[in-house]
């Protein structure tokens, strides 16, 4: 009994779903960011699984790029949250409705 690649893919799919639901349901901007990280990690796991399955190192290189982009995204996102918080307290995404028509 070995661990099939599809088992890893299912873990990735479930993790992505958890992240997506969290992004839809939670209203704290920081927690929403963490849910995005969950989704990115699920995709990374899928990439690594396919890298092994097809014996292609390119999947692992892509994961490296995803890591870099995720780091940049977190830095800019947290900067935006900081800038918003400075004007108004609270991290509730529903309160930020200035652009609402």
């Amino acid at each position, binding site marked *: *009994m*070995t*661990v099939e690649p*599809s*088992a890893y*893919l299912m*873990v990735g*799919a479930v*993790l992505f*779903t*958890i*992240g*997506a*639901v*969290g992004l*839809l*349901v939670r*209203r*704290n901007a*920081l*927690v929403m*960011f*963490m849910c995005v990280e*969950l989704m990115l*990690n699920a995709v990374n*796991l899928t990439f*690594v*699984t396919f*890298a092994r*399955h*097809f*014996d*292609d*190192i*390119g*999947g*692992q*290189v892509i*994961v*490296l*790029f995803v*890591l*870099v*982009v995720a*780091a*940049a*995204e*977190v*830095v*800019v996102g*947290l*900067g935006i*949250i*900081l*800038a918003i*918080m*400075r*004007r108004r307290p609270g*991290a509730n995404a*529903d309160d930020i409705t200035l652009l609402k028509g």
Partner: protein
Amino acid sequence: MFGDSTTVDVVTFILAAAATLAGGFGVVMARNPVHSALSLVGTLFGIAVLFIAQEAHFLAAVQVIVYAGAIVVLFLFVIMLLGVDREEDLAPESLPGQRIAAAVLAALGLLAVVGYQVVDSLSITGASAVSGSASADDNISGIAESLFSRYVFAFEVTSVLLVIAVVGAVVLARRHRDVGGAR
């Protein structure tokens, strides 16, 4: 890896997958953002173990250092800095039926993906490796060779992206005292 130690592989996979999914649930369910961040660490470590189980040793190390080390600490730093580390009331929904709709949609999507995987069982393409083998003994040198030959342009673009992100973060985070009030 698939030789005699298959039981160890299976047990490792089950434990790591359980840690990953439990951490994911923790991130979504926790009322306190600090608890969410700590659950995220559990997920990231579980993913790192799954990377090691799939012979991606370098990525596992990078995962722990960059994600669990840098990104989660950044999250915790911002949580503490903003003082939003108090409990959040999860009860009221801003849109009625929002959670049920999200759960149903997610279940349908998950069912589609998992069902597709089970039915198709990975015979998706007949593509052969274009950027080198992903074997365990030369994992780091394989990544390096691929990164600095085939993907070197993307690598350089990534460095530009990092510079832009650093400049953007500085611009966003600094106070504009002299430019017409707080911005």
